[in-house]
């Protein structure tokens, strides 16, 4: 019961914020709405028994990426004219196709009979995830660490390039 109430709150909050991100006309406000959307996602994760993932979501996404995006928006957009900075085009048609897409997938979701398990995993997950990461998923883990490194070097190179020319 309590879980359902929380779920409803998180759902409405996240989707509402997501909607604002999508249709909002002010880029800075969109960025802040995105921040809250990501926050709401962390709420979902907690409800789904993923305490560690939720923390990572808060740290990396809400704390890192959202702030990064806000900075990006401030550095590049015409912040002094916020309503011109975030224009839509083909708004109507994309809206229609988006709604069509959603209703289609929703229909499929409703029609499908998902196999479910009886008991859910409710223990703290940090230990188990650490074990999995360093045993079963060690290779993807290393690959992703390397990818991050490459991405950082690449980003530095990209941004620096303009100065050198």
């Amino acid at each position, binding site marked *: 019961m309590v*879980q*359902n109430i929380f*779920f409803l709150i998180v759902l409405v909050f*996240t*989707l509402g914020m*997501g909607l604002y*991100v*999508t249709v909002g006309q002010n*880029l800075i406000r969109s960025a802040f709405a*995105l921040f809250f*959307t*990501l926050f709401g996602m962390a709420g*979902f*994760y907690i*409800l*789904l*028994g*993923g305490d*560690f*993932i939720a923390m*990572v*979501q808060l740290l*990396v*996404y809400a704390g890192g*990426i959202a702030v*990064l*995006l806000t900075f*990006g*928006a401030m550095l*590049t957009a015409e912040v002094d004219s916020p309503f011109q900075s*975030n*224009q*839509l*085009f*083909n708004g109507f048609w*994309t*809206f229609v196709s*988006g709604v069509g897409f*959603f209703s289609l*997938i929703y229909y499929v*979701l*409703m029609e499908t009979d998902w*196999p*479910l*398990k009886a008991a*859910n*995993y409710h223990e703290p*997950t940090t230990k188990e*995830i650490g074990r*999995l990461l360093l045993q079963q*998923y060690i290779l993807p883990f290393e690959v*992703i660490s390397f*990818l*991050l490194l490459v*991405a950082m070097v690449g*980003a*530095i190179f*990209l*941004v620096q390039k*303009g100065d050198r020319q």
Partner: protein
Amino acid sequence: MSLTLILAASTALFALGTVMFISRKNSIAILMGVELLMNAAALNFMGFSYYSPAKDHPLDGQIFALFIILIAAAEAVVALGIAIAVYKEYAHVQADQLNQLEG
């Protein structure tokens, strides 16, 4: 709360992200759309991980959600780098004007 609802929420976020990706003119906004897409995918993994009938792998989906978050971080870094580089070159980041590929 049920798997269907979780998946519906994820689909909704995905649709929002797609709409944003398609309809925005500003590159930074497009990037935000991509973040929404990634979150939708991660939510899908989390949902399936929680409700999956497989007994011996209760946390595999969570691991993948973690990977998605990390990939999203890498992607955001590079994409913002590109945005900044574009801004230096053109003094704007309007995607509709960046049409050098036009044939």
